[in-house]
């Protein structure tokens, strides 16, 4: 039984151990330099990532509070990969930061929260995991302590999180009130589609929609992404969203299967709104972080198309797209992080002529932008294609056409940035960015991921075999 405990909860125990190691270093008397703390943390995170691949098994513990299977293990590994790359990219900014250990403590507790949320088979556990995932992020958003924008971002994040948690909790309590149980396994049988239950479901859905910044619950996204320090933005936009997508898809397919017709229409409407509004607003942005924020909102609209397919391909395409999204968005934010850490420049006009001074980084950003746009041979094309295929299985060609049109609009602003990088001249371009081994490693991982995870079809096939639909 103890053996089971260690094996089944390996993904949660490892970050907890790292958390406490770092905590003891902080309260202890050893005065470690920032560089050595960062090195230690990255090594530990790498060990965490690698250890996740070995010796996993399916099972449950603590009743229905915790369960795991191969797909959940894969999802957690993707999040581990995401946090590792974020940590690598944060090195440039953390080198001179006063609170390095606290950064890692908060990041790890957020990760633990996400893991518990994914593994939970009970609404209470899910809620607690969600809170544990969100609250450290609100503190992290404030980590640019001298900047006012950072505090503003943290304030907006905590306000919107609190509001969405309130809605979510209201929905959960009504759900409990009408069915008498919190467990995922028992809920589907007790759902009878009465008005109060549908109302509770809508509230739950709204709580989720806040977290994945689907329109019209997206208003916090742009300001928070712009104000928070870039590594925190990367974490928020990739790892946090990815975790919520995983839970969203799994909850919709298992727990709320009886309400499938209801949520299909909701997903259809929201995905159309999200894609259209996300793309339209992204067109107008001048700040690169805001542009990437709105672009990630539009990408979420795409994922909703895939999830609406309700099939095995639906789950598989959503998980696959999150993996591709980890590589792509982190590559884009990585370059932005390096530029921001060294020069503080964040406007698109500052990026003109970037290719002349920094050819490698310009190519990395260009490949990432093409992947976001969904142009072959990058993995982004395959991700979007699988999502559209999954959505098309319901024969709703309006959705497909709107998705295709949105790909064109999104291509416009991505191409605009590529054009600025390569073809526009600049009197004072961004100077040569020096980046250390951490940033190089992060870039290599992201590029390899973007190029290979599309062409190597084994990745998608593996995910597909692990998924279940209905």
């Amino acid at each position, binding site marked *: 039984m103890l053996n089971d405990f260690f094996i089944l909860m390996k993904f949660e125990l490892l970050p907890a151990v790292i958390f406490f190691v770092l905590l003891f270093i902080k309260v202890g008397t050893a005065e470690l330099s920032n560089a050595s703390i960062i090195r230690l943390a990255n090594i530990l995170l790498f060990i965490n990532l690698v250890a996740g691949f070995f010796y996993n098994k399916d099972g449950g513990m603590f009743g229905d509070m915790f369960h795991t299977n191969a797909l959940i293990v894969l999802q957690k590994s993707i999040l581990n990969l995401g946090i590792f790359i974020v940590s690598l990219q944060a090195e440039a900014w953390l080198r001179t930061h006063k609170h390095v250990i606290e950064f890692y403590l908060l990041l790890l507790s957020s990760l633990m929260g996400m893991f518990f949320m994914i593994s939970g088979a009970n609404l209470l556990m899910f809620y607690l995991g969600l809170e544990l995932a969100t609250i450290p992020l609100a503190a992290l958003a404030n980590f640019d302590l001298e900047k006012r924008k950072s505090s503003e971002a943290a304030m907006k994040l905590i306000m919107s999180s609190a509001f969405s948690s309130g809605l979510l909790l209201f929905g959960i309590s009504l759900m409990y009130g009408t069915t008498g149980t919190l467990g995922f396994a028992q809920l589907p049988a007790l759902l009878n589609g009465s008005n109060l239950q549908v109302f509770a479901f809508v509230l739950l859905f709204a709580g989720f929609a806040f977290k994945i910044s689907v329109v019209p619950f997206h208003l916090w996204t742009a300001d928070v992404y712009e104000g928070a320090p870039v590594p925190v933005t990367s974490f928020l936009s990739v790892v946090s969203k990815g975790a919520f997508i995983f839970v969203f898809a799994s909850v919709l397919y298992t727990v709320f299967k009886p309400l499938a017709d209801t949520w299909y229409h909701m997903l259809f409407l929201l995905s159309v709104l999200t894609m259209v509004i996300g793309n339209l607003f992204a067109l107008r942005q001048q700040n690169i972080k805001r542009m990437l924020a709105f672009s990630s909102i539009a990408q979420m609209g795409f994922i909703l198309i895939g999830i609406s397919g309700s099939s095995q391909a639906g789950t598989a395409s959503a998980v696959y797209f999150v993996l591709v999204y980890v590589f792509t968005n982190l590559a884009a934010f990585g370059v932005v992080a390096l530029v921001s850490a060294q020069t503080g420049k964040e406007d698109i006009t500052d990026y003109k002529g970037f290719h002349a001074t920094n050819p490698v980084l310009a190519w990395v950003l260009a490949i990432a932008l093409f992947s976001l746009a969904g142009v072959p041979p990058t993995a982004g094309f395959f991700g979007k294609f699988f999502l559209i295929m999954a959505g098309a299985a319901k024969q709703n060609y309006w959705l*497909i056409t709107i998705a295709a049109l949105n790909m064109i609009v999104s291509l416009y602003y991505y191409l605009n940035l590529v054009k600025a990088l390569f073809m526009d001249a600049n009197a004072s371009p961004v100077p040569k960015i020096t980046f250390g081994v951490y940033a190089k490693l992060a870039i290599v991982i992201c590029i390899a991921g973007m190029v290979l995870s599309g062409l190597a079809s084994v990745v998608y096939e593996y995910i597909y075999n692990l998924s279940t639909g209905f």
Partner: protein
Amino acid sequence: MIALFLILLPLIGGLATFFAKSNSGAKNISLFVSLLTLLLVIAGISGIFGSSLNFYDSAWITPLGARFTIGLDGMSKMLCLLTAISFPVVFGVVYNNKYPQPASFFGLMLLLQTGLMGVFMATDCLLFYFFWELALIPAYFLCSIWGGDKRIKVTFKFFIYTFIGSLLMLVGILYIYFKTPDHSFALTSFYKIKLSAAEENFAFLLFFIAFAIKMPVFPFHTWQPDTYEQAPTPVTMILSGVMVKMGLFAVLRWLVPVFPAASTHFSHIIILLSVIGMVYASLIAIRQDDLKRLIAYSSIAHIGLMCAAIFSAQQIGIEGVMIQMFNHGINVIGLWIVAEVIETQLGTRKLSELGGLASKAPALAIILVVMALANIALPLTNAFVGEFMMFNGLFRYNVWMAAVAGISIILAAVYTLNMIQKIFYGETTVVTDGAIDLAMGTKIILVVLVVLVLALGIYPQPILQLTSDTVAAVFSKFHS
């Protein structure tokens, strides 16, 4: 295996060229790789190593039913040959030019070749779409970084316009995929679909618009003259010599055989649009002062005829299209080479500023005249054979259409001979006073092209033989 290497060789060569250290290193690697690809294509066509090597099939994305299937049938062989000939020719012509960042330039050219080869060989629709889109990125970067003054806006428009077409095609592909009996993307599965008339027309339109933008066919042609003008001339050679054939190839491979009823349904309006485009483009070409734009509009007219001939649904028309795809490629590349030589030597492309070059550069003059006569489709040149067959097919479809299309030949003669006269005869101008004749390398390449023009004009049988199996297949589908 040969088929697979035809894709891998330019790909690896391109990636290797990116890392070349010096200008000459980049040029030599790319020239070598392109010549090797040409040898490989010839080996594949002649069947020395056995014809089974011309096909390759392996599992790709099994959950979706997409396989990595490529193969060389008659039309593919001919187009791969065209591609394989074009790239060494282009590299040879620009060998003495200096481009900034040559490693990237030549690397991107080879990546473009990979995309083109893939399009011509793919028999799985998802793979076809993948390569179709893949060819776009190197073209975009090549035009945007090394192009003319107004290149940025123009290439932006080119990319987005083509992408719109591709996405419409994607919707169409998905639509057809769900109608195939075994849910797969293979060409053979696409042949087995059963659609109602309305569904077939809808899907036909989605595909056709994508191909019409690529070819281009009036009224989707607005991106073409600007892009050809602003692109660096070697890239234009590939764009107009090979990339437009992607559109025609796609119509013959993926559109007409899969949607025969819709093809017949829409043929009248498509032929009408093509013929209007031919006359319209020819009229505009007459008024052009810029040499590159003139050749661009002339290209629209030629492609318009090919498109009309396909939809005339006559066997001889389709045979004409096959042979003309190859011929037009050779001829237009020859014309672009002349334009390139004139531009690099004299620094201008304007016909009003040129004149009297024949006295200064006789070899260039002779070659251009031959190419120009091929453009007009004079007998003895290869274009004559193709155009004669195409007009034959169009004539059998509708006499009046053929007559109106015939006007464009006259107009072609007008602008081509006008061009020759303006450039080569008359008084020399300030600009052309200091002109020298062709360099030896360029001369040799152009002579080879001229020989091809004349040889295929006199004896077109090899190409006809090569593509006869595809013609029969398409024709039978049309009338099934």
